[in-house]
């Protein structure tokens, strides 16, 4: 399975970084999560805002499918969300932007350790998979709605 090009670029950036630089880049991405929020005037085809057991705060996922069938996300995180979750939010908003719903559904989760690194994908770090699962869930809901409308 090939990943969306933008996501591949991010994976390749992270994959061979020394631990200290990997952490530094993750912090930069976590800072960038603040820019993933909805912008004024944005409209979305699907909004999924909820607080799940698996995450320490509310996460809102907003999905827009443009006229060419490409997906664009906004994600809003509650203040208690952990740093790795913030970092993965910014990585995925950038890495999946412009992919089709079908491409997003086909993205396997095995890229996550290549970005996060074995050091950080350990006990209690399953949180790094959470945002991907939420984005896929939003896409799946949109696909189901489209199917139902056809």
């Amino acid at each position, binding site marked *: 399975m090939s990943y969306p090009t933008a996501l591949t670029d991010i994976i390749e950036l992270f994959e061979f970084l020394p631990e200290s630089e990997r952490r530094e880049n*993750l912090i930069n991405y976590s800072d960038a999560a603040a820019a993933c929020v909805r912008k004024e005037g944005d409209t979305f085809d699907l909004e999924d805002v909820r607080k799940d057991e698996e995450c320490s705060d509310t996460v809102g996922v907003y999905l827009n499918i443009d006229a060419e069938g490409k997906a664009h996300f906004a994600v809003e995180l509650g203040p208690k969300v952990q740093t790795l979750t913030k970092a993965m939010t910014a990585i995925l908003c950038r890495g999946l932007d412009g992919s089709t719903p079908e491409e997003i559904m086909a993205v396997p989760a095995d890229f996550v350790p290549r970005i996060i690194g074995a050091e950080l994908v350990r006990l*209690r770090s399953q949180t790094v998979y959470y945002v991907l699962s939420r984005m896929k869930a939003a896409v799946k809901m949109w696909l189901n709605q489209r199917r139902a409308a056809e």
Partner: protein
Amino acid sequence: MNAKFADYATPDILVDTDWLLANLDTPGIRIIESNEDLLLYDVSHIPGAVHIDWRRDLNDQTTRDYVGPEGFAEICRRHGITPDTTVIFYGDKSNWWACYAFWVFQLFGHTKAKVLDGGRDKWEEEGKTLTRTVPTYPASDYPVPALRDDAAHRAYFQQTLAHYQAGKKLVDVRSPKEYSGETTHMPEYPQEGVLRGGHIPGAKSCPWARAANADKTFKTRAELDALYGGELGLKTDDDIIAYCRIGERSSHTWFVLKYLLGYIHVRNYDGSWTEWGNMVRTPIERTA
């Protein structure tokens, strides 16, 4: 000193945020951040604070155990800590991991140790200074401790089993659903590999959070006495073992019982439910 602290059994075991802000540059102290959030220290920390990661630094990387005396001395040397340094712990999640790191330091007899009341949450909430600058300190020559004194502070599985069989006091500090057996992990956390739910027979439920205020500070002596002495009926000289799932929440309760209330014989069963709930043929009580 913060007036609240005077009532605790060990009043100087805590510092408050104002004291710490005024003493950031005081010689002879080392501020240590220990968190659940793996990258939180990298995002920002109290100026001058060093980072101790409970997994990478305090745990043996192969065996489920803590570092030995050599490893402990190496951590201290790396951060310029000497036996005379007063270490002040703080962290996220109401100081779970700060208390856990404090507890590990006690295994090695480093008694010049304190905890920041309210931890990182209170410091942030008050808008006090944070930085990304990672400090460096000249390495110290911290001597290798003669031993890791587990006996005084730590309970192993066999000891906990004997403790339960003798009808001694056990405090289960997990959430009510974990205690009842309805879940095997706390709210907001993924399943982490425990095959059975429930609690050690005879253990009393007292979730750790009942010892904390909304601002993450510890409750007053009177409130804590009412909880542990009153509701749970614990006596100062009882032999007590606290446990949770992996030993961090019970470190919080261990700290409260030992230092804030002055209970004499308190140990932390760090194997906790991930050991007990996976052990073949170990007795379990369920209420769910």
